[in-house]
């Protein structure tokens, strides 16, 4: 299989395409590649990396196209593997063509093997979204019976492509019938499969819902031969369906037919999650506290044990708060669960926070201020490190509002511009028609950032205890609940954390704080050494300043306290003096 796949994707001797196939495939490929360029850069960065030299189709539109082929996810998965896209990591022309051929084979009922593509096959068929049907065919009301359609299909296919098995065509006409919301003119029709594919591809990058049309296929097909139904339906259900279909549905289809896994978050879903995150917490680099998240997720009407389980899965660092990637993972799991997917035993690799941050790096988050408090990270996690950093040091930065505002401002702009295109309508509709998953979440204020920042400042203090035994620092544990933490490895624990562990761990944390901060810098790849060094230097400087600041603040508060007391004593003494004075005078 490997060899065959390799052979198939090498110089491609075994891949024989007819003229019709060549044309069709190249147009499809151009669409995918063009859509990739024009779209918001979907898909994993491998697509971009593979760009040099050959044109590549980005996996976003390719995935949509594959989904439109209506093959089961498993099959698509196999196809992707076989064609070699998985191996090389992108869809080059050869991989794409092989994949299309395999799709055709699968749709014809042949097993998904490299050998299948050596025989003659019909073109692969793709369902398109019904808006394309609208675009292409203004009034689709006039439709004919099955019998009329099928001959059209067959004849057109035969004239346009090579001779095919009529039986194959007929057995698959039901799948074709929705596709055939056709006009009556044969020449127009024969371009239907391709044009549908194109318009679908083109629109899929702008639209969020190829799926609603697909989702309605099961509704449409049982209607059977009366194609007047399917044809007439699309116009009726047009825009309202697009809008009123919940994100859940879309996600379900996206999830169910995506070749890889149902746990992969697409770009659209990601945008949506990010928007929801921002509605709860304006700063996308900060985090949502547990209670805020609890209120929000409870609206999804899942049972408490399930929500608790989802939380367990998604809160990777168990700090009682969700950063943006954790939030996206949790949201995704909730949506998947609502669509009937069983919850996984462990967090799928595509939902890990590191993966999410690497897969969807936001350029603006690469702020030079942030270096890593990271624990052991895989390589190439610079954006991830920054994001982790941001989560942890967002509290550090509470006293430095300027850089954060810059970052978040830029973030918001970046996110906004990307999200606005895709989501505004969806948001408004979702709020109206969702099944309660996301009624317009009330703008919950971000939970105690000041409290947490203070806790952080106390945590920062603790490493200093050994160096600067100020009494202010000593008294801090008694003042507050549990400000303990090991800054490099875990963010602040919630108040349930006992103090004694704080004292226990202060010594290790003091020692761990130093070497850890140094050690954590090392895993960075050499490529970004210089920038990371700079960042590290800046980061340490900031941290030191922050610590000093915190110490001084504490001292300040202590002294204020003493001053107050002294004032009161003085007032008391003066009163006494007043009372005594008449006596002495007398």
């Amino acid at each position: 299989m490997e060899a065959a796949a390799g052979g198939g994707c090498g110089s491609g001797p075994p891949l024989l395409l007819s003229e019709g196939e060549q044309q069709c495939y190249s147009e499809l490929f151009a669409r995918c590649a063009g859509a990739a360029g024009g779209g918001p850069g979907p898909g994993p960065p491998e697509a971009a990396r593979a760009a040099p030299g050959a044109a590549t189709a980005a996996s976003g539109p390719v995935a949509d196209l594959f989904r439109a082929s209506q093959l089961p996810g498993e099959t698509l998965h196999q196809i992707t593997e076989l064609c070699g896209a998985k191996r090389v990591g992108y869809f080059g022309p050869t991989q794409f063509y092989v994949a299309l051929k395999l799709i055709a084979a699968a749709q014809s009922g042949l097993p998904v093997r490299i050998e299948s593509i050596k025989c003659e096959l019909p073109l692969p068929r793709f369902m398109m979204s019904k808006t394309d049907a609208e675009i292409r065919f203004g009034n689709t009301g006039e439709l004919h019976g099955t019998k009329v359609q099928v001959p059209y299909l067959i004849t057109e296919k035969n004239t346009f492509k090579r001779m095919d098995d009529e039986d194959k065509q007929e057995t698959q006409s039901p799948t074709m019938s929705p596709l055939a919301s056709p006009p009556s003119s044969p020449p127009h029709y024969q371009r239907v499969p391709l044009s549908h594919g194109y318009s679908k591809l083109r629109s899929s990058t702008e639209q969020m819902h190829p799926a609603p049309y697909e989702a309605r296929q099961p509704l449409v097909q049982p209607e059977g031969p009366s194609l007047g139904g399917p044809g007439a339906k699309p116009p009726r259900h047009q825009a309202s369906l697009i809008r009123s279909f919940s994100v859940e549905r879309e996600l379900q289809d996206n999830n169910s037919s995506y070749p890889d896994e149902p746990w992969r978050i697409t770009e659209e879903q990601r945008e949506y999650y990010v928007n929801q995150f921002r509605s709860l917490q304006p700063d996308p680099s900060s985090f949502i506290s547990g209670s805020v998240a609890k209120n929000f997720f409870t609206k999804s009407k899942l049972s408490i044990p399930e929500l608790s389980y989802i939380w367990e899965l998604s809160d990777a660092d168990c700090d009682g708060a969700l950063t943006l990637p954790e939030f996206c993972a949790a949201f995704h799991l909730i949506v998947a669960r609502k669509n009937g997917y069983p919850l996984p035993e462990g967090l799928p690799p595509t939902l890990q926070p590191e993966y999410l941050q690497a897969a969807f790096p936001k350029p603006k988050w690469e702020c030079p201020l942030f270096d890593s408090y990271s624990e052991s990270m895989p390589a190439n996690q610079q954006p991830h490190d920054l994001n982790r950093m941001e989560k942890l040091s967002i509290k550090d930065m509470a006293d430095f509002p300027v850089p954060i505002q810059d970052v978040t401002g830029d973030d918001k702009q970046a996110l906004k511009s990307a999200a606005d295109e895709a989501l505004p309508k969806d948001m408004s509709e979702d709020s109206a028609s969702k099944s309660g998953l996301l009624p317009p979440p009330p703008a919950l204020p971000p939970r105690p950032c000041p409290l947490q920042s203070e806790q952080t400042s106390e945590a920062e203090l603790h490493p200093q205890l050994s160096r600067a035994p100020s009494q202010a620092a000593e008294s801090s544990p008694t003042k507050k609940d549990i400000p303990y933490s090991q800054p490099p490895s875990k963010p602040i624990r919630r108040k349930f954390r006992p103090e004694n562990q704080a004292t226990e761990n202060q010594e290790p944390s003091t020692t761990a704080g130093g070497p850890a901060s140094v050690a954590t810098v090392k895993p960075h790849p050499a490529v970004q050494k210089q920038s990371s060094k700079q960042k590290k230097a800046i980061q340490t400087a900031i941290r030191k300043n922050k610590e000093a600041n915190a110490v001084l603040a504490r001292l300040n508060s202590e002294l204020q306290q003493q001053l107050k007391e002294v004032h009161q004593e003085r007032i008391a003494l003066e009163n006494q003096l007043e009372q005594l004075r008449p006596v002495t005078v007398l």
Partner: protein
Amino acid sequence: MAVCVAVIAKENYPLYIRSVPAENELKFHYMVHTSLDVVDEKISAMGKALVDQRELYLGLLYPTEDYKVYGYVTNSKVKFVMVVDSSNTALRDNEIRSMFRKLHNSYTDVMCNPFYNPGDRIQSSLQINTDLTSACHRGASQRSFHVRVFQTCSWELPVSPHTAPEGLLVAGPSMAW
């Protein structure tokens, strides 16, 4: 080797209790129950000192001929009790301490889950995938806690996650002390 682990709430009712050999469960429950008195005694003895200075690890609570019982209490008066087989002489105090520390960490992670209400039972969530309309709202699903406790005590986890550890799951009513 620990044969029984229990997490007791502040009001002295059990939040989580597991024992490894399925038989003799009741005996272990009884031992844990009786050990609570000793725990209270130790807490009050040390209670005069400041809370900060009180040691969390209580040490050996009382030995029987076959087993020893160790205790640990958190600052929020949640108690961990561990029953250990006496025949295992290689088990040292440090190991017991570390086991308690891991237990404590697992417990705080359970606490961090906002869907867990303190005072709820820590239940094993093995019904989640099978029963879509689970009406079990009381206890949060704390599967990872379960897993980690088992790992801490070097117990074997049930083979398939979908088969509840029937032999180990304690019946609810009998736990109502």
